């Protein structure tokens, strides 16, 4: 358990290091003063990332002392996290394709049914309610042209 948590910190530090290298490389392609600050910050980030990486490696190699377990976070289910991202992704796709007015009721309804396991009646009511709220506030009151979705345009 402990080792897995530390490994994730290690992975993150590694990722940040990789990002630092990437942005630094890009920074050197910007001529003149546009490149100055990105290069400076890039080097600083790289240095910091390596430092963090070092600390994480250290913590893995050396046996962890029991006093540290106090700040171990609650066990988090990775599956749940992926599902959370998944729901968000689906919403984005729907928004892009069919816009807000269609996505809102569909997404809210689906979420309440599948994830919240609410009754058909409750799910529908809340889905409609959310859509009505969006419609009234943003379209009627604010006269916005909400994104109609790529499929619906032109």
């Amino acid at each position, binding site marked *: 358990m402990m080792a897995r948590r530390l490994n994730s910190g290690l992975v993150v530090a590694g990722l940040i290091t990789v990002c630092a290298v990437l942005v630094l490389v890009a920074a050197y392609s910007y001529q003149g003063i546009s490149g100055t600050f990105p290069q400076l910050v890039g080097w600083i980030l790289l240095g*910091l990332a390596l430092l963090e990486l070092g600390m994480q490696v250290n913590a893995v190699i050396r046996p962890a002392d029991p006093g540290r377990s106090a700040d171990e976070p609650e066990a988090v289910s990775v599956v749940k996290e992926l599902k959370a991202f998944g729901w968000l992704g689906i919403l*984005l796709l729907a928004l892009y394709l069919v816009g807000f007015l269609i996505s809102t009721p569909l997404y809210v309804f689906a979420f309440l049914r599948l994830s919240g396991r609410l009754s058909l009646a409750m799910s529908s009511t809340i889905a409609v309610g959310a859509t009505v709220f969006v419609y009234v506030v943003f379209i009627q009151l*604010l006269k916005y042209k909400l994104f109609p979705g790529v499929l619906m345009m032109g």
Partner: protein
Amino acid sequence: MFDSIFTAASYLADGMNLLFLMLGVVVGIIFGIIPGLGGATAIALLLPLTFGMQAEQAITLMGGVMGAVTIGGSITAILLNTPGTAPNAATCFDGYPLTRQGKAGVAIGAAVTASSVGGVIGAFILILLLPVAKNIILFFGPPAYFMLALLGLTALTAASSNLLRGLIGACLGLFIGFVGYDDLGGVTRYTGGVDYLWDGLSIVPVLIGLFAIAEMLKLYVVGGSIAKSDDAASVGVSGTFEGIKAAFRHFKVILSGSVIGSVIGTVPGVGGTVASFLSYSFTVQTSKDKGEFGKGDIRGVIAPEASNNAKDGGSLVPTLAFGIPGSAEMALFLGVLVLHGMDPGPMLLLEREFTIFVLILALLAATVASGIIVLLTARYLIKVTYIDSSILIPSVIVVSLVGAYALHNSIGDVFAAAFFGVLGYLMHRFDYPRITLVIALVLGGLMERNYFQTSLMYRGDWSKAFGDTPFVILLGLVVLALLMPVISKAIKHKAGQKA
């Protein structure tokens, strides 16, 4: 001057004008609550309505909006960890933990009181500063702005609990700020050819993502509802009373927050977000017992809320004195002024004293009025936090994303908000502070721009910068901020030794 103030007050008290004020207040609160909408959108919406009005009526309406917006925003920040407007972001840090402990009423009571009192203090400071407004603006040049940005960055980073990760967060924030067209060097950076990124990433979708969406993702993974405690007492009226009392107990925090807010507000382009973060950080740094900050220390709510209302006063200084808007909100407000025949500039303050006092009093009245309205409705608002997360999550996400879209009519902002939502969740998960990222994002551009301006101005010879007074003062503050953690540890150590 005093008779002008009196005339302005009696003007506002007149029926029709009072109505405009209240309309502005209500609109302000609502727009403040919904993330993504804010003062700027509210003013843009009401602008066409003002065509037929007298100048003072239009100003009363807009003053009502501006004074109320951040109070509305504090509600969502406290209850849903979603800053309703960017300057409310710092309120999330301690406001939301309080809600999770079932003490939302206390937080709201304190936030509202701090906001109202802060707004009043800010208005007074504005009245004091206006006669010397021109001198103040002229006092700060590129060297000073650069140092100010650096100060903001160092003060907040030095205050992070995990310095290394705080710095990494700051670097990430700086890089996010680099995205877009750089009009100094004429090069587009980090856009990968994507048109949407040409203008860079705006702070509002980033905040919506980092806080609102990240919080909803967290809630999904963890489950339950936002407020855990069943202690109904602190939710009800008694809770808010306790909050109000707490605010007055910590009056010094309100005072420091207001001063910081007003002063930072006068710096164009920096605005409320930075002011509230600086105020928060200042309070943390100067408190003896810091342990509770981030976990529900009421001072962490009072400080930013006082400053984000005081900044309204401050940000009017460059707007009125030179027509330099400090924020999108001010830019629109400028539009209102011009439309009604008031041309901000060196002449305005002399010629239109009455109108200016109407504005200041409207702001004052709005802060107090919106505070009262929120306190009265607090009980119902708080009920939201007891709603089961399954219902709350999709609703908040949808409204947040619509708000993000509404900002610039851009679907790109929606994707950005979602991206930062995931990033914000991951940062929370792996214990990287978001606060330094946000501050670096807001201040990065200012720092870079003014660095090069200063360098050009002095033809590369930075030693000349030491002839610029504000530069030297701010440099001193930067050094102080860097040494502060060391100093306070040394003091604690000495105290520990004596005991």
